[in-house]
């Protein structure tokens, strides 16, 4: 995956709570066997509405999506992350993320920025008032700032994930360095555990 250290740019305020992954990318789009081209399906049903925030010109070209609480709940579909990345987002901000979604983000280099609810609210309001507001997310320092609006916050990331994001490391490669441990574990497994073949 692509390394990501700082994400800086304008942001789109999606002022809704409980945006589940079915909304981010509807199931029609899940029939594809490719990993690319999902940007066109991002929020497909809402984008039919011309006034939907993603359709508004003043927010075009944004690299950050700021949403209400419980973003990315529901289905495990990584297609949601592919769609956000393909559309051009490099970071998503919410006071709370669905666990699987947040996990999927970090596997693909989309930064999940979990902010305090007050910071999230302040950002949504500031972006509604000023679409040109610049927001900067620093992955190494774990900070999010919009100085022109006087907003500054932090977000948690475990050290391992932070390092992986910053270096763009591939998880599988990292795990395969411990292949000996896997083999050793396999030797200790009870023989009666089920197997697909038996």
């Amino acid at each position, binding site marked *: 995956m692509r390394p990501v250290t700082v994400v800086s740019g304008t942001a789109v305020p999606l002022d809704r709570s409980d945006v589940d992954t079915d909304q981010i990318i509807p*199931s029609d789009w899940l029939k*594809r066997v490719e990993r690319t081209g999902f940007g066109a399906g991002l929020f497909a049903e809402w984008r039919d509405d011309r006034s939907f925030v993603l359709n508004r010109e003043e927010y075009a070209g944004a690299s950050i999506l700021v949403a209400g609480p419980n973003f990315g709940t529901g289905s495990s579909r990584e297609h949601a992350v592919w769609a956000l990345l393909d559309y051009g987002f490099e970071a998503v901000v919410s006071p709370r993320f669905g666990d699987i979604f947040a996990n*999927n983000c970090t596997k693909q280099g989309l930064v999940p920025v979990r902010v305090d609810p007050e910071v999230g609210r302040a950002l949504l309001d500031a972006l509604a008032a000023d679409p040109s507001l610049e927001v900067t997310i620093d992955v190494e320092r774990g900070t999010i700032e919009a100085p022109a609006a006087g907003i500054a916050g932090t977000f948690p990331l475990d050290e391992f994930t932070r390092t992986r994001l910053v270096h763009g490391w591939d998880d599988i490669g990292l*795990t395969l360095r411990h292949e000996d441990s896997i083999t050793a574990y396999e030797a200790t497994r009870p023989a009666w555990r089920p197997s697909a073949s038996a």
Partner: protein
Amino acid sequence: MAKSKMTLVDKVWESHLVRSAEGEPDLLFIDLHLVHEVTSPQAFEGLRMAGRGVRRPDLTVATADHNVPTVDVDKPIADPVSKKQLEVLAANCEEFGIVCYPMGHANQGIVHVIGPELGLSQPGMTIVCGDSHTSTHGALGALAFGIGTSEVEHVLATQTLPQIRPATMAVTVDGELPPGVTAKDVALAIIGRIGTGGGMGHVVEYRGTAITSLSMEGRMTLCNMSIEGGARAGMVAPDDATFAYLEGRPHAPKGKAWEQALDEWRALPTDEGATFDKEVVLEAAGLLPHVTWGTNPGQVVAIDGSVPDPDSFAEPAEREAAARALAYMGLTAGTAIRDIQVDTVFIGSCTNSRIEDLRAAAAVAEGNHVVAGVRALVVPGSHRVKAQAESEGLDEVFRAAGFEWREPGCSMCLAMNPDKLTPGERCASTSNRNFEGRQGRGGRTHLVSPAVAAATAVLGRFGLPTEVAR
């Protein structure tokens, strides 16, 4: 670090540690990897691009469920994109030596229905699948959770997953469930209480006398819905009901191995005095059947209730979400749930498509008829469930009552196959998600139990089996 008093989750976690290092996630061994057509193609492609193989095809099982049509399954699939996805699954399984149950196979079905029924899902195991409802398998006392496609690729390549240890949450339901109140209602009541985010970052262990007296099917329904409360996994400690359910199933241990397994399984329940990071307690006694009114499963009331007024919510975000939900659902605040009429009834999905669910629905349908103008579908969870139901004559009961009896699959739970709602169509559904558009663009979903779904089909509006005349 091993604690002296351990929870069920702790025990499964500790016994699957391949590696544990300061400042890194634990590396967990995965006992069973279930695969389906939607979330796996890109993972197999990733393996090919990196020149990697599948480490343990013997611990990997695939089935076709999300896309499969539920009629004319002996004919070619009409939708070319769905058809291709199913072909790609078959080709990938062939290439990497993975057992696959394609459409029409006697073992085919919804991935979370076939795991337990084939005896593949057992207590104390780690089970993953590229599907959030993998939590279902926790009913057997396994640590089972959904993963994304990158993680699917990781498990295929290494049979392990790096995971940060989740927090634990005990949800205790004590007492006796009133008649007509099912596991589905308990699940909806819990989500109504904790909210859709209440379980985030946690693995839930369901405890208490109301839980232990549930059947295995009921426990599966309950664990299935854990993800709707935000929890990544839900578990019930294995007990005699679990062992009785497993004994004799195709992949269950046999003979001496069965005895060894029992010894291990009996040691799994949470130790007396072990603590959880969060605890929630519910009384079984006052519970009623539940119906969702909104567009997330936390927007739910008892069937005696009415559609709430958005202004009744204290939190501004909840108020707005409720107002948006009512607009989408075409509902007015104050309308009694029983006055809401439906167009469609869907009985199926990994939440409620097992034999017990079909029996409960058939008991209501028997001697009655689906009201004119309502379409009602029954989609069994697997070929095995279908065969069992047919041997009990349930298919005849449903057909005679005006329900359509279909072939197994996910079907109208997520509308990837031709079973979809049209815009504005209102559906009483036994599935797990009432999200906007989940059952078809513009469709309006109300989540209910199988018995309430069947009664609703007969009445044409939400109601209880006791309201259905004989």
